[in-house]
């Protein structure tokens, strides 16, 4: 069972920013504003616009409910399960000129302090050229799922494992021996290691879809071929606003759209993920550059009432080697999922997703083990749109894990999404 009363303490992101009353009031105000704007936008059937259309507002209010996830399969940090979440998301686009816009997205989860999710400027320096620059807290270029992260674009209430499931790696703490890593298999929701931060804390997903990274990005071309490149502060597993290790991540995606029915993307990323505080406490001989390297492939096929998507994310982490049994080999992980949505009738669809998250084996004094416990998930559900701006989803999810206290569980979830 999770420790009572200590949850906030263990959330690294919120330790430094305790939620004072004024922030709660701001969160409530944003929630109320979001609901009001959503209702107004839904009634009008149009986005809310100001200043003659130069500023447009949009938003999404979603509530997801499910029984307690005792296996922590759906947690995206120690406190937040994607299946037990009330989220208010407000977004805005201000057109400064024909070639420049500022985009903004702020969200509050479970009425907690609002967090800026996106804030960036979008520029098109040459009107006649398909070249766009974006700078700030920008959308990720890697993969396809993170750019349809909003609940309205996701046919099921949950997030794919590769973009949400917490592994037993941390950016601010490392094991000194492979045994310490192996013993944390299946415990990504609350990991602790002796080197670096000794506070227990949540692990890292392969790709964090709940945050965007700060940096600059460039997009070249449109269909059938386009290329997006980005240089950012953090990494796929730990996007950041401020750099914490002097290392930058370079990521990119090449998208090919031979026809409207098919979109294929190849992605890659490399960046230093280990925080400076770890480097500062390890022996000088072990100091170096410890990176996350990732490659991805995404496919989408759609026609008629079908949308079929598949995505795979391969990620390699390197850790310092300290004591025996040393972690000599890079730690590889592979996440893949396939999902399909079929419209049964106007306003009603059925959807399903199957996925797997696998890890390579490493030697340890207790034998050869995968460095984290592999997870398999299947989920099936349906979505109903009684009105254009309302989406109601229900799903059943089954998880298997080769490790941890809870190895298997079933979850039934419901989600209501109001968007405008």
């Amino acid at each position, binding site marked *: 069972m999770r420790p009572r009363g200590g949850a906030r303490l263990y959330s690294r992101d919120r330790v430094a920013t305790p939620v004072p009353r004024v922030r709660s009031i701001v969160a409530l105000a944003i929630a109320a504003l979001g609901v009001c704007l959503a209702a107004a936008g839904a009634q009008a059937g*149009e986005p809310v616009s100001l200043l003659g259309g130069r500023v447009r507002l949009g938003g999404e209010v979603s509530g997801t409910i499910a029984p307690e996830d005792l296996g922590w399969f759906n947690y995206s940090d120690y406190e937040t399960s994607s299946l037990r979440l009330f989220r208010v998301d407000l*977004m805005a*686009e201000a057109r400064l000129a024909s070639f420049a816009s500022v985009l*903004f997205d702020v969200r509050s989860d479970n009425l907690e302090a609002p967090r800026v999710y996106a804030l960036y400027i*979008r520029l098109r320096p040459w009107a006649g050229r398909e070249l766009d620059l974006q700078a700030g807290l920008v*959308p990720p270029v890697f993969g396809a799922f993170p750019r349809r992260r909003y609940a309205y674009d996701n046919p099921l209430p949950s997030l794919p494992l590769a973009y949400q499931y917490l592994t037993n790696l941390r950016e601010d703490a490392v094991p000194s021996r492979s045994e310490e890593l192996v013993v944390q298999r299946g415990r990504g929701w609350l990991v602790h290691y002796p080197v670096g931060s000794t506070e227990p804390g949540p692990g890292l997903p392969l790709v964090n879809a709940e945050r965007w990274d700060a940096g600059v990005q460039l997009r070249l071309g449109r269909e059938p071929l386009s290329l997006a490149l980005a240089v950012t502060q953090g990494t796929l597993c730990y996007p950041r606003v401020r750099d914490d290790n002097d290392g930058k991540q370079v990521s990119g995606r090449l998208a090919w759209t031979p026809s409207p*029915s098919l979109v294929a993307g190849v992605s890659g990323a490399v960046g230093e993920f280990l925080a400076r505080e770890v480097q500062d406490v390890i022996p000088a001989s072990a100091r170096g550059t410890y990176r996350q390297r990732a490659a991805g492939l995404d496919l989408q096929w759609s026609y008629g009432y079908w949308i079929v998507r598949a995505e795979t994310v391969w990620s390699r982490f390197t850790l310092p080697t300290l004591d025996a049994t040393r972690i000599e080999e890079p730690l590889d992980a592979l996440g893949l999922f396939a999902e399909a949505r079929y419209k049964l009738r106007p*306003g009603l669809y059925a959807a399903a997703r199957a996925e797997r998250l696998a890890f390579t084996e490493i030697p340890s004094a207790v034998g050869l083990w995968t460095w984290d416990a592999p997870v398999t998930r299947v989920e099936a559900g349906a979505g109903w749109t009684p009105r*254009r701006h309302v989406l109601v989803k229900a799903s059943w999810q089954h998880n298997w894990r080769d490790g941890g206290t809870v190895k298997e569980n079933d979850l039934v979830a419901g989600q209501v999404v109001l968007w405008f």
Partner: protein
Amino acid sequence: MVLRAALAAALLVASGSPVQEARTAGGTIRGRVDVRRAAASSEGRPAVTDLGHHGPRDTPDRRRGVVYLEEAPLAAFEAPAAGRAVLDQRNEAFVPYVLAVTVGSTVDFPNSDRVYHNVFSLSKPKRFDLGRYPKGRSRSVRFDRPGVVRVFCEIHSHMNAFILVFAHRYFAATDAEGRYRIEGVPPGTYTLAVWNDGSVRARREVRVAAAGDVAEQDFTVE
């Protein structure tokens, strides 16, 4: 919603006047609708997840409207002239923005864009979803009930249009200059309504004195 419901109900109302030959020997109602109200934004939601600017797209002409008789001769309801119309999907806009048809009409929805569209409506008079289909393909929908049908694209949130389905034939869409012309109206006194961009904006009584008569009626929509 109240206005839409009222419109839908109005379209069903017959005047109760004696059966007349509605198609011939009628008069004409014509005029101009001057829309002075600012059109709502035609842009979509903030494109926060996009990696760049979207390409140029057409802006629908939201000043177009429909002028119609709220009550019509009974004969007009007994034999509505079902027809065929086209609502094109072109440069990420529905063209025209407003389509007026009679009950029983079939509307074709061709896709003229290189990208997919997914036309759908959840309106009570007609719920439909045409799925995704590429450029050059078309799907059709027959409208069997009168009322206002709001049409959207599932993929492009800024795309929307209206189809007004009438139980009689006494209606006319305005042209680019706002002009309209309703022909073959039997002599009588009628309530003329102007519908623009989602609502009934004005009503005016109009009298067609005799067959061959031309009644002029202009509107200003603020």
